[in-house]
């Protein structure tokens, strides 16, 4: 049977839904309505395609990483170069789509959350482009870690609010963005940055990010005359992974690997691996796998990469795991840093720390596959934002 999710209540199997207060209900129903109309409207699709091509710079290359392939010694490795998008990551695919929806709904203001600042920058960018007022909530800890991205958002005319609740990271930024949205519901659209949150957000973000997989599938067919044997992508909330995976959903022979952040290790207690270590629960409006303590309180996630530092995971990933459609694995901070350096040296590409998790696992996987097979890694973002952090870490370890 053909894969069909979510259902009309927003569930992917038993995951997803819309667990939000009545004050938000009207807004999410309005959004769903607007999205259903947009899906059927060729004008909307044309406009979206136009901005992706002329403004974002799509399509992005599917690059055969020959040096990296040789380094790993196994399957051919292709990189889907989302790092080459305007603003340096896949995040803008979604923010373009959502701001076009916001415009259709007659909203004048935008609110968003951000962890590493990539989604914040992508949102600030489209808010500037469409002349909308924008406020981005960011955990105080992340404001410190990612000072450059804070300044980029400010240059783009966005107000960045430092969140000093809870653990001062992404989870708390989402809480605050949701609170702000409720209080400004009449004229504000919330541009959620991942395949998370109440229905229809996971579906909308998946669909807007699916451009990654659609392009990659066609590009790989052209290059190799066949589909790849494997897809590999990192997972925080899971938007770049879902964007790559989803267009391959019916290609049963293509294996999918989502790589979670194992932080200091899966036995350390310090990780962001919600599928490996979480339990079914509800956070930020959706039922999904969530890191939680023995009382059901949501735990803080931990990862060197601010973009993966989230205790939940997109509900559709939980469903893919249950169905066995994708396999979910993890890479530690250490493995990600090593992979980061390997890609720099072999291919002359500085990847985001988030994407480095995917590379770390892909290197292991490639070795186990024969040379006549191939895989696609989603290189979700570029690493300029991370070089200060890497420098400090390598200096501390005396490796540089």
């Amino acid at each position, binding site marked *: 049977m053909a894969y069909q999710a979510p259902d009309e209540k927003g569930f992917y199997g038993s995951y997803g839904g*819309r667990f939000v207060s009545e004050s938000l209900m*009207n807004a999410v129903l309005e959004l769903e309505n607007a999205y259903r109309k947009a899906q059927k409207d060729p004008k909307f699709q044309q406009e979206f395609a136009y901005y992706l091509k002329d403004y974002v710079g799509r399509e992005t290359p599917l690059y055969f990483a020959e040096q990296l392939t040789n380094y790993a010694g196994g399957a051919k490795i292709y990189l889907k170069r989302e790092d080459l998008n305007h603003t340096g990551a896949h995040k803008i695919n979604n923010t373009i789509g959502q701001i076009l929806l916001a415009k259709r709904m007659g909203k004048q203001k935008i609110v968003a959350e951000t962890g590493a600042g990539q989604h914040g920058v992508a949102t600030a960018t489209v808010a500037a482009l469409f002349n909308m007022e924008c406020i981005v909530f960011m955990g105080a800890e992340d404001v410190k870690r990612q000072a450059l991205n804070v300044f980029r958002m400010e240059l783009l005319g966005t107000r960045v609010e430092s969140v000093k609740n809870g653990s001062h990271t992404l989870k708390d930024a989402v809480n605050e963005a949701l609170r702000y949205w409720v209080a400004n519901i009449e004229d504000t659209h919330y541009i959620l940055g991942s395949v998370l949150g109440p229905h229809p957000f996971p579906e909308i973000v998946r669909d807007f990010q699916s451009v990654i997989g659609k392009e990659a599938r066609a590009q790989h067919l052209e290059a190799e005359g066949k589909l790849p044997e494997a897809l590999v992508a990192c997972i925080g909330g899971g938007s770049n992974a879902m964007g790559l995976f989803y267009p391959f959903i019916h290609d049963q022979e293509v294996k999918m690997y989502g790589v979670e952040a194992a932080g200091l290790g899966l036995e350390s207690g310090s990780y962001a691996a919600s599928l490996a270590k979480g339990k079914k629960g*509800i*956070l930020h409006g959706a039922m999904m796998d969530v890191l939680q303590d023995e*009382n*059901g*309180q949501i735990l803080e996630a931990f990862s060197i990469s601010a973009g993966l530092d989230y205790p939940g995971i997109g509900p559709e990933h939980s469903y893919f795991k249950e169905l066995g459609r994708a396999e979910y694995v993890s890479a530690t901070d250490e493995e990600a840093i090593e992979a980061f350096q390997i890609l720099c040296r072999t291919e002359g590409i500085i990847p985001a720390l988030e994407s480095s998790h995917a590379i770390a696992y892909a290197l292991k996987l490639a070795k186990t596959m024969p040379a006549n097979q191939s895989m696609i890694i989603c290189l979700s973002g570029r690493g300029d934002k991370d070089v200060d952090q890497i420098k400090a870490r390598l200096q501390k370890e005396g490796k540089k």
Partner: protein
Amino acid sequence: MKTLTQILNQKVEKKEPIIVAYIMAGDGGLDKLPETIQFLEDNGVSAIEIGIPFSDPVADGPVIQQAGLRALSQKVNLEQIVEKLQTVKTTIPLVIMTYFQLIFHLGVENFIASLENTPVKGLIIPDLPYEHQDFVLPLLHKRDIALVPLVSLTSPKERIQQITQNMEGFIYAVTVNGTTGTRNTFGDNIEEHLAELKQNVNLPVLAGFGVSTLEHVQQFSKVCDGVVIGSKIVRMLHEGQKDELAKFLSAAANLR
């Protein structure tokens, strides 16, 4: 045994304002809970909303967030709170207010079964909308526990009909677009909105979010059946202003 609806309707019939006091269970230690409930009952409140501390309370403003963090730092959990409530003797109904995650974690059925020997007669689950109430509602009917529907300023008319029909307890009319917490002003149309709501539903209508002065209590009790007072009470209890709080609550309960 009277249901929450019956108990509150007695107040409505007598034309006395319904005053529901919200407290955060575990703020100041779980052992204080029975004493606080007794104190509120002595000062004339009609029912008590027992807040359960949660790590990510998105519907709450700063005062209740802080109270939740204080309770969590005491390692209080939902099971212990319910156990404590099993020891409470009170003549007024209690209503548990919790985010759905905590109930889901315990298992909805287990949780509801554990309320058997408590004075709990209602549940408020702010992030369980009408569309998902089947997770809880079918398990409540046998037990005379109400699932209190929330109505917001943004709920369209037809939806209000849909989400309030066949429900029990009271209608929690959220008075602002925003989170819980003290406010000085409300929207211009708030009285109209509450009066209209009151006309269209069969349950007592209580206004909540931001209610913090006797003027608010008076203003809202004129157009609906009463109020829920949260942040103000939580703050005064935390700051040890029991005498002032007693005066405030008695005055509120005696407004006509």
